[in-house]
């Protein structure tokens, strides 16, 4: 029998026909009854979101409510007067722990294209950011997502001011120097300050996919039919001078995996994994490997999960090696230590440190890990591993020393991003009522949080200058 059917049509027809076509009214009625017993969750500062809420009325609607407000204010003042000294001490303890400021809620400026607004709560000194060999990274780039729009922002940690640095789907280079964005005829590369823009020869629907860690190269992808999957991709240098169109037709592109030194890139395609140099030269299909991959620091080998086990293989596809041979499989996220000798891999709630000879030791991270680990991130020196455990809204980051002897927890957080020198960890903060962006010291102490407008994406943020 030959394939005489239209696959998409057949699939849509099967989806249409499968399952019930009606919903019992009792299901909706029960939900509505439940909803009647529940209050709506209002944003803490709804008046600040000018698009969703009307300007608050400063004048109460009736003399009765005015009197009640005045009474409430007087009552609060009286309480403060009585307990002033105690209150002052308590407030001081709340915001200043033994090692200095614990929580910082800074004002975030509203930019013309954003609705980033937040109330100033406490003014605290900025973090004392260390000098990395490449300079001081005093800002974070992060994204917020709204339906059909993911927008990049820059949060200046010294001033607490957040500003939009691009439009929907723009992708900012890790060092913040360049932005890849969608132009009217295809991909456009711009400097962050907008002083120069270079169009790239791409289909109209091209998206920026992934910058190399050194911000010199960008992988883009495009669907020639905007309603279909991506089929075309390329690599372009940040200045647009070097462009390579990737050779495989009908490519479906997982987010590319760059080696830590930015020398090599691996891209999943329909024909297998395409591995080559950062500039798009010497690309070779080396067979099928499931994404995501974790590169060795020397870019000569990478790790991946297959059949429930951790495997490593040379970058040319030779010498695949099963590193774990778990009895029941179940290997999950994987990360190769930046100092090379150890690979971290999750298996259920257990974090394994696997050495290159197959020896390993494990650490039970508890029930939060059992519900899901989304990311493993080694600190640059390889001494600590950040493990994002749990699912929203109960996510946390466990900071585990490489010998497994110490675990510190950063609560209400995910998407760990290390400072280039390893002294700080930035994260997506999920503080109740004040979600945004936060940083802690490498040992998890000294938490500072900046509330920002919008939903911060779980996509990686980066430290920028």
């Amino acid at each position, binding site marked *: *029998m*030959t*394939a005489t059917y239209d*696959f*998409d049509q*057949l*699939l849509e*027809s099967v*989806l*249409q026909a*499968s*399952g*019930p*076509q009606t*919903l*019992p009214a009792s*299901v*909706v009625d*029960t*939900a*509505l009854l*439940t*909803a*009647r017993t*529940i*209050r*709506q*969750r*209002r*944003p803490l500062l*709804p008046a600040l*979101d000018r*698009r*969703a809420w009307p300007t608050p009325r400063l004048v109460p609607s009736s003399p009765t409510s005015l009197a009640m407000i005045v009474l409430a204010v007087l009552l609060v003042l009286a309480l403060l007067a009585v307990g002033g000294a105690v209150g002052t001490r308590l407030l001081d303890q709340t915001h200043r722990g033994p090692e200095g400021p614990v929580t910082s809620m800074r004002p975030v400026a509203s930019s013309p294209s954003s*609705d980033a607004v937040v109330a100033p709560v406490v003014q605290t000194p900025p973090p004392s950011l260390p000098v990395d060999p490449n300079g001081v990274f005093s800002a974070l780039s992060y994204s917020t*997502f*709204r*339906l*059909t*729009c*993911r927008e990049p922002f820059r949060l200046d940690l010294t001033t607490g001011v957040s500003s939009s640095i691009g439009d929907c*789907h723009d992708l900012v280079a890790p060092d913040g120097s360049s932005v890849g964005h969608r132009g009217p005829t295809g991909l456009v590369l711009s400097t962050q300050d907008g002083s120069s823009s270079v169009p790239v020869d791409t289909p109209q629907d091209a*998206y920026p*996919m*992934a910058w190399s860690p050194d911000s010199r190269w960008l992988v883009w*992808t495009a*669907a020639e039919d905007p*309603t279909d*999957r*991506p089929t075309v991709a390329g690599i372009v240098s940040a200045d647009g001078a070097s462009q390579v169109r990737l050779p495989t037709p009908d490519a*479906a*592109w*997982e*987010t590319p995996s760059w080696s830590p030194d930015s020398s090599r890139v691996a891209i999943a395609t*329909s024909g297998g994994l395409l591995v080559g140099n950062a500039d798009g030269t010497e690309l070779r299909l080396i067979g099928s490997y499931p*994404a995501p991959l974790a590169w060795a620091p020397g870019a000569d080998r990478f790790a991946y999960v297959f059949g429930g086990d951790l495997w490593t293989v040379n970058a040319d596809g030779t010498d695949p090696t099963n590193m774990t041979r778990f009895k029941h499989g179940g290997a999950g996220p994987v990360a190769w230590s930046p100092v090379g000798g150890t690979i971290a891999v999750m298996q259920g709630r257990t974090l394994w440190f696997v050495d290159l000879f197959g020896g390993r030791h494990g650490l039970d991270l508890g029930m939060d890990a059992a*519900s899901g680990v989304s990311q493993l991130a080694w600190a640059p020196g390889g001494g600590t591993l950040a493990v994002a455990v749990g699912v929203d809204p109960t996510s946390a980051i466990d900071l585990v020393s490489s010998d497994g002897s110490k675990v510190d927890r950063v609560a209400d957080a995910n998407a760990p991003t290390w400072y280039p020198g390893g002294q700080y960890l930035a994260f997506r903060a999920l503080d109740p009522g004040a979600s945004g962006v936060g940083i802690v010291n490498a040992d998890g102490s000294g938490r500072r949080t900046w509330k920002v407008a*919008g939903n911060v*994406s779980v*996509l990686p943020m980066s430290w920028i200058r």
Partner: protein
Amino acid sequence: MLVDRALVEQAQHGDRDAYEALARASARRLYLTAHRIVRDVDRAEDAVQQTLVAMWRELPSLRDPDRFEAWTYRLVVRFCLEESRRARRTGVREIRIEETEPARPDAFAAADLRDQLDRALAALSPQHRTVVVLHHYAGLPLAEIAEILDVPYGTVGSRLHHATRALRAAIEAHERVGISEGQPA
């Protein structure tokens, strides 16, 4: 489904009648989508009920009322994936027993093909099946699915590609068996 923006705004400001009108108008669409993701009547009903309750509770956080429909997809997908995780833990599987009309001989091949595709859909991971359902059933473009799932655009494309490849492979394997068993073309 065209949703009245004013109705959404009223519901956002606590108007329960407006919310109930929205909930009733959205429930079937959400249920049919949920069932195709979780493939179980009870779990789809649970996911829809949770979605409708969350819709009321979270409506004030919806920034753009015009995006109501896509926002409800985000909610229902979230609860579907939670239900799927729960199903994996408890190992519950739905077994559908249906009466079917006797098929005509020339309908065997087509029905068999559809059945094979349906089984291949069931074998996909919930994440891959979600992308297939949102794209091929709900008719959403990949960019919108990427935002609903909060994953990169390329990841959606990749999931769709791998899911499609798995579905095609299942059909092709079935066809090869059909040829070897001498089934009619």
